[in-house]
């Protein structure tokens, strides 16, 4: 068992599960989406990105790309949340919440791709 592989897979799957946890629920209902989960999803996603640094294989490059996409989506999502909560005069409205969640949904797809790539890599290299 490779400790490095365990940590790597742990963070990638955790990024997906946290992202999913935030995404699930009615899209425009703020009560269904915990902002703490968004925060954790973003942090874990950033850590995943750094973990993927320096892998020179083709698959490694793909994984880094998906991770960067997830980061981008989550940062935009968090930005919209901050705008809705603190800057917009009307406060957190249903439309704003919907766009926060839909950006997180995009990140979810990227994270799923990441996990699929991880599985492909595991299946290809049987060690």
């Amino acid at each position, binding site marked *: 068992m490779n400790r490095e592989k365990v940590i790597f897979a742990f963070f990638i799957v955790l990024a997906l599960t946290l992202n999913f946890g935030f995404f699930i629920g009615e899209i425009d209902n703020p009560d269904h989406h915990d902002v703490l989960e968004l925060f*954790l999803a973003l942090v874990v996603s*950033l850590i995943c990105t*750094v*973990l993927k*640094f*320096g892998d020179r294989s083709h698959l490694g490059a793909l994984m880094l790309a998906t991770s960067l996409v997830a980061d981008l989506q989550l940062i935009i999502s968090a930005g919209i949340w901050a705008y809705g*909560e603190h800057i917009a005069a009307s406060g957190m409205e249903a439309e704003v919440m919907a766009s926060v969640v839909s950006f997180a949904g995009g990140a979810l797809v990227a994270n799923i791709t990441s996990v699929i790539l991880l599985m492909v890599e595991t299946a290809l290299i049987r060690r």
Partner: protein
Amino acid sequence: MNDILYVLLRRLRVPLITLIVVYAVAVLGFTLIPGRDDAGNVWHMDFFHAFYFVSFMGSTIGFGEIPYEFTGAQRMWTLVTIYSSVVAWLYGIGTTLTVFQDSGFIRLRRLRTFVREVRGLHERFYLVCGYGVTGNHVVRELIDHGVRAVVVDIDQERIDSLELDGLVMPVPALCADASLPDILDYAGLQNPHCVGVLALTNSDNVNLAIAIASKVLMPKRLVISRSENDITSANLASFGTDMIVDPFRSYAEYVALAAHSPHRHLVYDWLMNPEHRSLASVYRREKGRWIICGYGRFGRNIARNLQQEGTEITVIDPNPDSIRGMSSAVLGIGTEAITLQQAGVESAVGVVAGTANDADNLSIIMTARELNPKLTTVVRQNLSANELVFANSRCDFIMQPGKIIAAQILARLKIPLMSVFLDHLMQQDEVWAHTLVNRMNATVGDEALESRSIRIDESSAPAIQCKLDEGVEVKLISLLKNPHDRRETLECFPLMLRRNGDVKALPGELTLVEPGDEILFCGRKRDLTKFEWTTHNYNTLHFILTGEDATQSAIQRWISGRVQN
């Protein structure tokens, strides 16, 4: 070649993750710790403000407590996060700086810059492996003639010295083992602009590896290799190395030539070295015995060359093994008067100080000259740093094999026809050489003798080619006329004419020029540059041939043609 980025990212993985975790924990902490707003109600900081606060706290330690004054618990957490975030930043920045100073990383960065520079070369260049005395001379001369060079050497100090040499064009240089094909590839071995590979390192094995790699990858490319023993030379020749130079043998031949055929030696010297000795300096040979101090590679080669000419020799060497079985040999270094006297210095005509130690060599010469002031002295200079002492030693010949082979290589690179002429020279007798030296002396006097070759074809002599196409006869003497005044002759003369592989030395001035001829000229430098007028400018050539100004345009030429008809 994205290695640098990958190495940087891989080394920075841990510090980056540390930074992310520290920030995440700090932000999370601020959202969980209850605070109080200005009205005294319990208030929880949200992620937006927590991130804002941690961001400026981490980098600047604060603009104050926002949006409300902190409680004790919040302040305590702030203390923890200040220290942890500062440490995380220091760790991250420190690691980055370490990576940039890491020797492996610096090597990688140098290699990358080097590869980029070599790829950026869009004109012909030579790949020079080994930047010693020979490499240094060759590169300097190439650069002076506007030809680019790329240098690979195993010693970083030599690469550094290259930067201090003050060359007028940038020379991409890399400290690496040139025997590795990868390194040669980075250095442009497969680059279409690379016109030649020069293997000039001190190690025969490395030179062999370079020559083989070059001949395998690029069979048509010119390869010149240095070689110190006959086995390597034969090996190099077996796969078609274009030129093999043996510094020890070359110098021994050079010295022997000076001893037994001084005029041929002078012709050779004048053609090869820009600053030549005057005609009066021709070494007057005296029949007699020579003493050779140091019977190593140099001594052996010189002894062999002198013996071939029937000269008697006496060898002095400190190693009993190397002189075993020799009839006239003395054990010792040769720096003491007693050893030299044993070798019979009083009755000898010349002494060669050829040991590997410069101080010993000078000492031998000084002692020998005191015992016999009429001696011809030949001294070997091993280190170029001793230049000053040797230049003032008043020796007849200073052996610097590195310079001799550099001159040979440069002659081959600049004027390929020159090596053909020198081969021809070696087959001639002293009388022929004496006549030639007198002619050279009459032409240039004490000025530098330059040489250049031209080929009669469309690209290098368009005017002559055009005249020949018109059916006009061009004599060799026409090329020697001053383009500004056809009554005057330039201070130069043809050394050799090569036509369809046949070589004619010192062709007559009335010889008719034919397309495809290659002609080697020598003479004053400024006169040789005037050639270009005659070879390139149709009107100038017309003026020289006929004494009339050529009609300028095609229409005028057409009209004058009709008038004549």
